[in-house]
């Protein structure tokens, strides 16, 4: 249970580069009224970024055009379930249960 000085400095540097992008917009926008066009652009960010994150989980790690078929197979019922229940908690639970079941039966 020890931390070397070089590792501590490395972790601190990584903390700094993650904190800046998180905090900077809060400090800039606080002192600046954004134009309407910028606000409209920002209103698209949640749907765009969530879609991109879902797709990045579907794309496999073996180069371009590789897909994680396990994820795609479970994703479809999970999307339908989310549309039906509109519940974050139930969707997470059903997704995990379905994935566990798939892996149990396929091995």
């Amino acid at each position: 249970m020890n931390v070397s000085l070089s590792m501590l400095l490395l972790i601190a540097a990584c903390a700094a580069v993650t904190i800046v992008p998180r905090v900077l917009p809060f400090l800039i926008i606080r002192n600046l009224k954004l134009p309407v066009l910028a606000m409209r652009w920002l209103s698209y960010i949640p749907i765009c970024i969530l879609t991109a994150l879902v797709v990045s989980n579907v794309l496999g790690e073996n180069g371009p055009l590789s897909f994680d078929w396990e994820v795609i197979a479970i994703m479809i019922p999970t999307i339908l379930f989310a549309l039906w229940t509109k519940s974050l908690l139930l969707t997470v639970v059903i997704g995990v249960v379905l994935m566990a079941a798939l892996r149990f039966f396929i091995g």
Partner: protein
Amino acid sequence: MADVHASIGAEENNEMNFRQGVRDCIPTLLGYISIGIAAGVIGIAAGLSALEVVLLAVLVYAGSAQFIFAALVLEGSPAAAIILTIFIVNLRHFLMSATLAPHFTQYSVWQNIGSGILLTDETFGVASVKTQQKQGMTASWMNGLNVTAYICWIISCAVGAIFGNWIADPEALGLDFALTSMFIALLVLQLDAVESTKIKHYIRLILCIVILMIGFSFFVSSHMAVLLATILGATIGVVTEK
């Protein structure tokens, strides 16, 4: 916290208080717990000490960045390469912070720093659904959401680091899919709050992003692809809206 807000004259929405923030965080906790334990296990496997794993969770507080940190340390990558990679991986938070920041302009600088510093994919997702549903955003709600997630993450990473060798394969339990299904549910909740006249526009935009992501995957890492597809996608969204 409520006193501080009252003193600066901010309007406190009764239903959007600290406790409600904690409650709204609960559906995401399974994701934090499973990924946090995995991050702890992988950190130890890469040769980090348990204390270093916990320090990463406390100071860097980002799942994907912590995984990559462990992988790069294991490879013996130079410090500069590690720092640059972590920066790129987390650059998407800039867009998330910029999206939420306009809702916090009435609060103090320190509150804004606090809301930003603890922002994650998950807390952003939950908060942006709230703003999309036109529910008033309050700082104490955001604190409840953020602090719950932060504490849960640190504990999960610590558990992974300390007990990692005894925890059976988390993938067999489907726990890695918690993150994907959470993003799916947040996306569906976002769409549900969109006005019905605009829904076709948003569906087309989602198809655009899927194509962009597949296209970018030929040229850049998945983290860069997320960043570029989001920036380009939001621009397409503005340009093509009627």
